[in-house]
């Protein structure tokens, strides 16, 4: 099966390409990237005025399987990924039970093998049951196929255990991802602490509860001589701490999610539980700081933190509602709307942050359109406008913080290993 993508604007920062090119796909691989390719193929995709970019590598996704298949499954989540131009996912281990041992990795691998529509990589837990007290058998997690470690949803409170985890991760060459939250500071909080929590009469989550833990974990990484990846950075102080650590030469990478550079706490004034997220949507000042951090390269990566929940868990009292928004199907469009169309980022830098950058952090051979690489490609209509509605989602859940928003930029086709796995309905 040969596919030829004609006339698109190819964005491939790994190979320093940003120009009109044709791309030939043969046997699931990229076999040609040239000004003009004329050859007999099975399928031609006319990509005139379209962006042709590597499939997105989303290193922060909650697929919920096993355990909470009512929220999402590997099948439904990877279908949502395809619709969003995402071809590689790092699945978070806070499933039920958590991915905290070799058997769980095997079980997950089995489901992925049978049902996944895109590349799904496995993150194991740092501690047993993600409870923060006992380190997992990290070598076993690694040997069975986990490529990263995280207790996401929780932070490892015990600094000694965290230090040991960093040392183990370094030894076993696993990526250590930190959900930075000091629960003793954020306890019971449901929205950002400040004017809005005051007006709404809701318990607040301070910036401090995040950045104090960012500071601690980076300090521990420095001590261990290990690299560390900070998940979902949401506030200006965290940005500053990460910038300083990078200057000092500490091996830290950082990620943010589209909602942290596009939405602020003010969206919560009508108690919209789809905007109840952890870390919370912050102040406008923080949103501006996250944008600048993306522009300056302090934040390396954009990942969705796709967090599906059922309507029963969201359409209830604000205090009782679950935290999180889905994001796989909107992350590219939100990024294009907020970062490209505003002139904040170039297409190359966006692709760097959504494709090549995360692939580098994860140590995988993805995120580029180099000859011989897997043909994982997203073809994007950069000017196409659409409105986010409940009905538009293929995810099993529709708890999107972006419901009702108009976005500019839409995925037209997603190709995974040379197969067209998604095409927008005409």
């Amino acid at each position, binding site marked *: 099966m040969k596919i030829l993508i004609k006339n698109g604007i190819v964005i491939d920062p790994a190979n320093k390409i940003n120009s009109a090119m044709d791309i030939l796909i043969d046997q699931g691989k990229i076999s040609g990237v040239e000004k003009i390719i004329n050859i007999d193929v099975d399928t031609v995709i006319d990509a005139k005025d379209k962006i042709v970019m590597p499939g997105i590598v989303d290193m922060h996704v909650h697929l919920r399987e096993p355990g909470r298949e009512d929220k999402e499954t590997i099948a439904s989540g990877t279908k949502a990924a395809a619709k969003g131009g995402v071809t590689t996912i790092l699945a978070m281990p806070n499933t039920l039970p958590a991915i905290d041992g070799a058997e769980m990795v095997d079980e997950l691998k089995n489901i992925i093998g049978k049902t996944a529509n895109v590349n799904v990589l496995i993150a194991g837990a740092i501690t047993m049951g993600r409870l923060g007290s006992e380190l997992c058998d990290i070598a076993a997690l690694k040997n069975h196929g986990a490529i990263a470690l995280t207790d996401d949803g929780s932070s490892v409170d015990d600094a000694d255990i965290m230090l040991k985890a960093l040392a183990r991760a370094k030894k076993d060459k696993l990526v250590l991802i930190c959900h930075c939250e000091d629960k003793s500071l954020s306890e019971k909080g449901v929205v950002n602490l*400040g004017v809005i929590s*005051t007006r709404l009469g809701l318990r607040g989550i301070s910036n401090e509860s995040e950045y104090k833990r960012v500071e601690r974990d980076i300090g521990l990484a420095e001590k261990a001589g290990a690299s560390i990846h900070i998940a979902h950075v949401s506030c200006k102080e965290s940005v500053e701490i990460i910038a300083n650590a990078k200057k000092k030469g500490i091996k830290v990478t950082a990620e943010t999610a589209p909602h942290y550079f596009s939405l602020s706490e003010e969206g919560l004034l*009508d*108690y919209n539980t789809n905007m109840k997220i952890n870390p919370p949507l912050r102040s406008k000042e923080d949103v501006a700081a996250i944008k600048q951090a993306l522009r300056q390269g302090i934040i390396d990566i954009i990942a969705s933190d796709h967090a599906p929940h059922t309507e029963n868990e969201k359409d*209830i009292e604000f205090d*009782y509602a679950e935290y999180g928004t889905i994001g796989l199907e909107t992350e590219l469009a939100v990024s294009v709307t907020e970062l490209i169309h505003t002139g904040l980022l170039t297409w190359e830098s966006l692709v760097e942050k959504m494709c090549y950058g995360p692939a580098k952090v994860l140590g995988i051979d993805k995120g580029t359109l180099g000859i011989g690489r897997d043909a994982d490609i997203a073809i994007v209509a950069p000017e196409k406008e659409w409105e986010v509605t409940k009905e538009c989602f293929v995810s099993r859940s529709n708890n999107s913080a972006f419901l009702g928003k108009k976005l500019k930029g839409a995925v037209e086709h997603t190709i995974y290993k040379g197969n067209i796995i998604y095409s927008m309905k005409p």
Partner: protein
Amino acid sequence: MTRTVNKKSQWTHKDLLGLEYLSKEDIELILDTADSFREILDRPIKKVPALRGKTVVNLFYEPSTRTRVSFEIAAKRLSADVINIATETSSVKKGETLNDTGKNIEALKADIIVVRHNCSGAAAMLARHVNISVVNAGDGWHEHPTQGLLDIFTLRKKTGNIKGLNVSIVGDIAHSRVARSNIWGLTKLGANVTVCAPGMLIPPGIENMGIRATEDIGEALSNADAINVLRMQFERDEKGAFPKQMEYFKKFGITDERLEKAKKDIIVMHPGPINRGIEISSKVADGANSVILEQVTNGIAVRMAVLFWLSQAKKGLSK
């Protein structure tokens, strides 16, 4: 003093969720209407037929005899039928959800739900899920609009005009829905509002609501035309962050000695139930400046006005 209701004013809300969502005109319409209902309460026969054939359901997830009884009397004075549902704190784990309960009440053909709930935003959520009117009778720390309205009504009756009044609210501002409703209502009507509490009970950014905050009770009292003393709920102290009761009374308690330094005719309000000797001394609570019991009576008139206008509201109006 009697006022005639401005005939041009129109009530356009399906629900009463908070004073934040009302205009100055909306608030004045309710106050003016409450004026006429207040007179009825002093008649030998205290009943009008305005809500005959209508059903008001009091749905209370928190125990509150005062507010519930006040709403019940208000509805009965208007000739409505009243049903009281007192229920355990709703929980995410067990029992029927608030939305389902609301929809059932609607299916039972009730006309107005008066809801008291421990979660901020609960009344707003309920209002989105039912087509009948919802009155917020207190949601978490958020708002208690009829309490705000009755406080303002009482002040207006005493002073004639809210505009330019200096009103201080003293007590646990952070966890008080009464404070928030008073702040929205008073500022909309042009009063100058000061809140006063120990630092940890003043929530961040409260000044953004157009008011002043101080930890100095002397400053809060010095220029005040009225003071609203909030009930201190020491039992809700989760982190041991509150000052001790005696210490609080010493620093913030409203006593004769403190009032001597205030304006002579300062109006002292309290939403009740009062903790004598904790936030207010008995002498002040029962003294000449106190309007605490008048507030209770006025509360009926204000709630009658609210129920009256909501029963007039057309279905499908905004909040």
